[in-house]
């Protein structure tokens, strides 16, 4: 069994008060997790708590192996279009870690070109990031994630603005990353069919019904809590 990267132990997440029941989950190297839930269900709050951006309300997040590299792709709405950055500048940010930014850098890190090429976005390298379509931006952010060479990557709806083909390619790329480099990937997605095809593990979060279900994708999609919120999984998967 591969090594544990992050462990949620009786974890309660929220702002001032818990919004979900306690979460227990273990993420291992090489796993691809999909996070399922309706808008406002607590997915992003759970993400931010695992990443240390929000303090837990209760329980704890354990990182059994010290010195792990984490990377995060937030929801698309957080980026300010005022910033004059090229796509390659954004990808280069992925190569920063800790205090590395004070070290002089001559030329572009090689990971930038490699990552942009791997996601099929090299032609976007010299385009202003703010002028890209949402789908193109998300490909560039995938490249930034790859350039950061993480042990654990968390992506908050990275395929939300992509068409069906681009969305499938993005999942194939994430699948390739975890198989090739052994990193763990946790991704929030509403595309259940594709998610079920690629994911090893799934977690369903629902604030309104106070539900947390952790298991294989089939276990989660077949759970009573999931069916109560979404209806029949087969029908939903058939639509994406």
């Amino acid at each position, binding site marked *: 069994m591969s090594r544990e990267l992050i462990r949620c132990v009786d974890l309660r997440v929220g702002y001032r008060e818990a919004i979900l029941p306690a979460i227990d989950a273990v993420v291992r190297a090489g796993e691809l997790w999909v996070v399922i839930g309706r808008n406002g269900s607590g997915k992003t709050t759970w993400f*931010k708590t695992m*990443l*240390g*951006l929000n303090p837990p309300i209760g329980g704890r997040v354990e990182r059994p192996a010290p010195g792990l*590299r*984490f*990377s*995060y*792709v*937030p929801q698309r709405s*957080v*980026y*300010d279009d*005022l*910033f*004059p*950055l*090229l796509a390659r*500048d*954004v990808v280069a*940010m*992925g190569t*920063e*870690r*800790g*205090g590395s*930014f*004070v070290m002089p*850098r001559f030329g572009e890190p090689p990971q930038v070109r490699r990552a942009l090429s791997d996601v099929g976005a090299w032609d976007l390298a010299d385009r*202003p990031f703010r*002028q890209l379509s949402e789908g193109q931006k998300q490909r560039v952010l995938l490249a*930034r994630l790859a350039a*950061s060479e993480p042990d654990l990557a*968390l992506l908050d709806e990275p395929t939300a603005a992509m068409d069906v083909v681009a969305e499938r390619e993005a999942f194939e790329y994430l699948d390739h990353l975890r198989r090739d480099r052994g990193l763990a990937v946790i991704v929030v997605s509403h595309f259940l069919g594709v998610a079920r095809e690629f994911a090893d593990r799934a977690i369903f979060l629902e604030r309104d019904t106070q539900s947390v279900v952790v298991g294989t994708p089939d276990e989660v999609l077949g759970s009573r809590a999931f069916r109560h919120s979404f209806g029949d999984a087969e029908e939903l998967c058939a639509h994406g």
Partner: protein
Amino acid sequence: MDDAPTWADFAAGWELGIYRDPVLCGVLAGLVLGYLGVFVVLRRMVFVTAAVSQAAGLGVALTFFVEVHVGTALDPALGAVVLALLMTAVFAIDPERLRLSREAILGLAYITSWAGAILIGDRIAQEAHEISAILFGTAVLVSTRDLVLVAAVGGGVLLLFLLGHRGFVFAAFDRESARVQGLPVRALDLASWVLIALAVSVTTRALGVLPVFAFAVLPAMSALMLANRLRWVLPLAAAAGAVSGGAGYIVAFFLELPVGASQAIVAFALWLACVPVRLARRG
């Protein structure tokens, strides 16, 4: 019209050192604040510089107040720096914890500093002539000491900003991802505001509130309209600031106008010149 200033008059004044220090100070302040202003504008906090320069003015007034009423002589520049740094502590407050916006906190800080400077100025008005010049400096009369201070502090601030450039940009663009990748985002935030406060306070003391506010906003706006990449925006903004500082003084000399306002208007004219260029370009 025979009394109109000429280049010969300017050259003679330069030789004597009358115009050299104010022009160089204007150029240096414009260069440093033009560069820093890009970060201020990108973070949508242009009134930070106004609030900090008002706080610096309050600091200067306080040092005079202490000298007049307590008898202890303090350096006005020290008062400016201390109050400007205290103002940055206000920015360190997370406004959401007070259920307020950052903009509202800025307004509060600005109004309080402004009112404080007026109240204290009222108590030292009898002893001090040209109170506004004492409070906010004057771009006409810049001493060599002011020039040296602006050069030393401005140069140091610029150097530190260049050193941490990639960190400042990442933390400003995508704060959460920067934190996840281990960058000291809060320290970078604090450092950026402290450095900006230092630059604003010493330049405010030397030149005055108006040109300092103008240099910290308008050159950055011009550069952001012209360039699509930060590595070009920053030097362009610094150059536009330097031109505004120097050319503004020269315009004021020949047209016999107030210097600070002329520097601000030159910065505005440069921005205005950039508008058709921006509109003519697509993307």
